[in-house]
């Protein structure tokens, strides 16, 4: 009976060790991104198989894009607040509301244009096949997002 217990415990220990070993080996590189880089960018490097040089160039582009993006975000917030104030003041569409809506739409188009420019630049920095894959993926997630279809389905 002692031998039976020994064999049973050895089997269970082997299973646990096998599970933990392969799990640790398979997820170790995902847990700790390179120091100094955002985990999202580390993911981009991993997902699109970027070399260190490509990753460095894309990281610099990303920083540059985010700086401009922050400024555009400030404009969007400002326009949204203005629109909210106008909407609260009346229950009909005034010329000011029309203009604010048009400004918001223009701002959105400008944002999307800048985003697309960034996507194209980033994709051209990647190896061609990965660049194409990145472009398809990121366009589907942003400018071609199916949010409206989902809204109608709900």
């Amino acid at each position, binding site marked *: 009976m002692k031998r039976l217990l020994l064999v049973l415990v050895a089997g269970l220990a082997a*299973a646990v060790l096998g599970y933990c070993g392969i799990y640790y080996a398979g997820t170790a590189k995902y847990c700790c991104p390179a120091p100094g880089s955002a985990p999202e960018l580390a993911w981009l490097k991993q997902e699109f198989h970027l070399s260190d040089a490509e990753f460095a160039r894309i990281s610099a582009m990303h920083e540059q894009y985010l700086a401009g993006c922050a400024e555009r975000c400030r404009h969007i917030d400002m326009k949204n607040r203005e629109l909210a104030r106008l909407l609260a003041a009346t229950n009909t569409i005034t010329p000011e509301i029309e203009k604010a809506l048009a400004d918001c739409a223009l701002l959105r188009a400008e944002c999307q244009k800048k985003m697309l420019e960034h996507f194209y630049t980033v994709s051209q920095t990647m190896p061609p096949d990965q660049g194409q894959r990145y472009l398809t993926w990121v366009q589907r997630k942003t400018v071609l997002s199916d949010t409206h279809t989902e809204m109608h389905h709900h």
Partner: protein
Amino acid sequence: MKPENPLQNDEVLTRTLREWKVEASLPPHFRDEVWRRIEHRDLQEPVWLALARRLSAAFARPSLAASYVALLLLAGLLAGFWQVRVTRAQMSETMGARYVQMIDPYQRSLH
């Protein structure tokens, strides 16, 4: 009353026992009944004990014990591999969504 002689009694008893013969015959299927009762007793043994006894007998063979350990090791490796795939897919999905939120102002909660 005359006291009895114990030695004489013993001799009488011994002689009587030697001469005594059992005339009664065994009931029919006596032997089968005995085996049936033995088997029935085995059946009443707790399941875990019977299982432990069988496993113990099986694992007495080193090849079978090694196979059992190897099989569990393989099961652990496969489960770990599957879990890695699931975790990677989830992390990839999350990181992808976070990347998109970083670059698309209209997907941030602010706007």
